[in-house]
């Protein structure tokens, strides 16, 4: 029987437009783009030229700091564009998909008989290593490190997030198990699941059940309760969907970055799951499926931790959903500080959310809904931050640039996403995720 950890703090936000549990294919994109920004914390060095022919699994760029770490093409075809922005920053490497998809053959392997080093080499070669994120700093993992463990959360409880277990995993169970087995050769694997999960019997992993509200599904929250990270330690995390990629690599011998993502949100006409390849055009994923009667904000990811995107952009590497919410910048709501605003969602009882049934689904727009202030009310972050850390004091230490204090207060254990719910409930509208990101970057620079 797996260990059960109950989490008291948190908040489930019930948004309209959850994806129905059915999967459909999308029209293949003409051009796919791999976006370096999707892999936070690395410097890309492009290794292809425009006009080159690549197979799915060929490197498009490598990490300048660790050239053995490759970032591979999701499809076979011709490199059409290396898109650069200010100061020649690589924005994307675009590949025009060939009619016939060819994959680089990495050779089928039995994950059980491999050593940790062999698995690591195979992952680096195939570009799947790039999907590891390390704590501290929440950046692309460093292959030279020896992690104390590999942590995977098999569920996300963020609003509108894709349901991994009942939809995404369907038909991929064997690949998932192979992936877990392979990872267990590198380090001890810990899998966090929700109550009642069938994944409780996963082999080669220590399974822990997390029973609580959002963000209990955040891998950082789970690590904090299972094996908190101390200074000097490194833990690797990887998305459950990406474990399937690893399983495919060993079972099929090829890099197949096809994943099932949720296309959801109040402004999506038919919210459901879509099978897409990493790097697909957002426009193709949401084609004819977005409400046109108002301004819509497309988000790569869920509305709490995702990033604003647009139809012309490419699906980022880690994305498990594309969501659409109203932009709301023409709302012009009168007397927000006193009117009842029955359709608004709030944890504060100065609104009437508490009177509504918990099944009520809300349509929330992208407005910040208030002026930016210094932190005024206390205890707001704490009530939705299920970690043994003082979030407010940590954020203040980051704002002050006090590195010693950040360390003392546990910055090594957090990632920006862990502060997402706190940022949502904050009445002072402080940009917590941005601040935490800056703090992590500051510390990383300092410790290098």
């Amino acid at each position, binding site marked *: 029987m797996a260990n059960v950890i109950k989490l008291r703090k948190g908040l489930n936000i019930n948004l309209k437009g959850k994806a129905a549990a059915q999967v459909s294919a999308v029209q293949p994109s003409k051009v796919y783009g791999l976006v370096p920004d999707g892999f936070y914390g690395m410097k890309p060095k492009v290794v292809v030229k425009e006009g080159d022919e690549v197979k799915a699994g060929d490197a498009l760029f490598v990490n300048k700091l660790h050239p053995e770490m490759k970032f591979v093409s999701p499809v076979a075809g011709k490199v059409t564009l290396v898109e650069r922005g200010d100061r020649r920053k690589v924005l994307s490497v675009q590949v025009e998909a060939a009619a016939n998809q060819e994959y680089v053959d990495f050779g089928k392997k039995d994950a059980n008989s491999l050593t940790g080093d062999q698995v690591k080499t195979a992952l680096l070669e195939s570009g799947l290593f790039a999907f590891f994120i390390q704590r501290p700093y929440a950046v692309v993992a460093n292959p030279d490190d020896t992690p104390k463990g590999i942590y995977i959360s098999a569920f996300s409880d963020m609003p509108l997030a894709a349901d991994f277990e009942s939809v995404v995993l369907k038909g991929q169970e064997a690949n998932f198990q192979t992936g877990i087995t392979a990872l267990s050769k590198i380090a001890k694997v810990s899998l966090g699941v929700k109550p009642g999960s069938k994944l409780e019997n996963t082999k080669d992993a220590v399974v822990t059940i997390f029973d609580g509200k959002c963000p209990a599904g955040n891998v950082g929250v789970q690590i904090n309760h299972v094996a908190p990270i101390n200074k000097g330690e490194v833990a690797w995390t990887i998305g459950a969907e990406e474990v399937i990629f690893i399983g495919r690599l060993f079972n099929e011998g090829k890099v197949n970055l096809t994943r099932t993502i949720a296309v959801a949100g109040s402004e999506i006409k038919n919210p459901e799951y879509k099978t897409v390849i990493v790097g697909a055009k957002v426009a193709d994923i949401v084609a004819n499926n977005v409400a046109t009667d108002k301004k819509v904000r497309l988000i790569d990811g869920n*509305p709490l931790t995702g990033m604003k995107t647009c139809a012309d952009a490419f699906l980022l590497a880690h994305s498990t959903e594309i969501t659409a919410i109203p932009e709301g910048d023409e709302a012009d*709501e009168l007397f927000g500080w006193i009117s009842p605003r029955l359709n608004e969602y*709030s944890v504060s009882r100065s609104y009437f959310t508490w009177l509504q049934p918990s099944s009520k689904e809300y349509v929330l727009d992208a407005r910040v809904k208030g002026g930016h202030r210094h*932190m005024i009310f206390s205890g707001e972050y704490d009530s939705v931050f299920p970690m043994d850390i003082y979030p407010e*004091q940590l954020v203040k230490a980051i704002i002050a640039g006090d590195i010693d204090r950040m360390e003392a207060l546990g910055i090594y254990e957090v990632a920006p996403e862990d502060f997402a719910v706190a940022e949502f409930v904050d009445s002072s509208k402080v940009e917590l995720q941005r601040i935490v990101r800056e703090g992590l970057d500051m510390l990383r620079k300092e410790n290098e």
Partner: protein
Amino acid sequence: MGLKKILDNMKPAFSEGGKLSAFGSLFDAAETFFFVPNETAKVRGAQIHDAIDSKRSIFFVVIALIPALLFGMYNIGLQHNIAIGACTEDICGCFLYGLAAMLPKIVVSYAVGLGIEVAIAQYKKEEVHEGFFVTGILIPMIVPVNCPLWILAVATAFAVIFAKEVFGGTGMNIFNPALVTRAFLFFAYPAMMSGDKVWVNENYIDCINGTVDGYSAATPLGQLGAGEPVTYSAMDTIIGTIPGSIGETSVIAIAIGAIILIWAGIASWKIIVSTFVGGALMAYVLPYSGAENFEWWEQLTVGGFAFGAVFMATDPVTAARTECGKYIYGFLIGAMAIIIRVLNPGFPEGMMLAILLMNVFAPLIDYCFVQSNINKRAKRAAK
């Protein structure tokens, strides 16, 4: 919408480089007063936000103060009518008299405080913060009715500048600005703030009703401090028909405010409850010597104890910010207020000083709890 259009048309003049750009902050304040800002989330970070903002939270505190304010107005008239021997049954008359006495104080407090806040916001090129809406209504409620307007204006200006803005404005202050106003008055103009001459209105509106010059009406705490018998029943102190600072007398009106604040989740129940526990315990341990018809628990109903516990101690900026720290913070305020009342011959009322004292100690209380978390982490790492 018409109003939105008018504001949009006016906006360029108030923006940077416009003719009226010197009043930009004022325009911003007006615009956000009418409309929820249409600003949307940045590219990264949470794309959706809770509808609560500091404006709404702060206006809920003002709403919670209204019962105490209305009762305070009534009580001004009531005390005045008692003093001149007029009819005390006329609730409406009492209230209107109190309203006339109170309005100038509210106007002065808001005009001076907001004027300074707007000027400073304009200087710093920031939005005007709404924190003063609470302070501005609290100030007239915690002074005696006889306090002259010019003194109120000076004290408000002092508090806004030296207790708040020098620290960086709303959210950064160490002391509760309303209490600093009161402390300033208390020490700079003691004759205006305590004794038995200040609780009944003597100001100009008396021309209508006849003067009450020199009339003395001591508060229960004044009587206790002087070692005299208390002439008010427990019921009087709970309903609030006794002399005292304008907003502080009625426990019932304050309780209504407390329920609103706790229900809306704006004030910490932990602070309120622990303040009363600390006060009750200390009142039980330290009774007034010789006060025979005064039960220990009546300590909590007289003076500014209830008002301070509900509206002053709970100011989130100056209180302890850790959840466990709030219990200690509240407990010490309650205990300290009673200790000052009973043991210090100089100050019949201790609530103001107790809260200001604990404002100073709040960071220390937080430090202890945060440090224990830090130590735990350091110990774990050393293993």
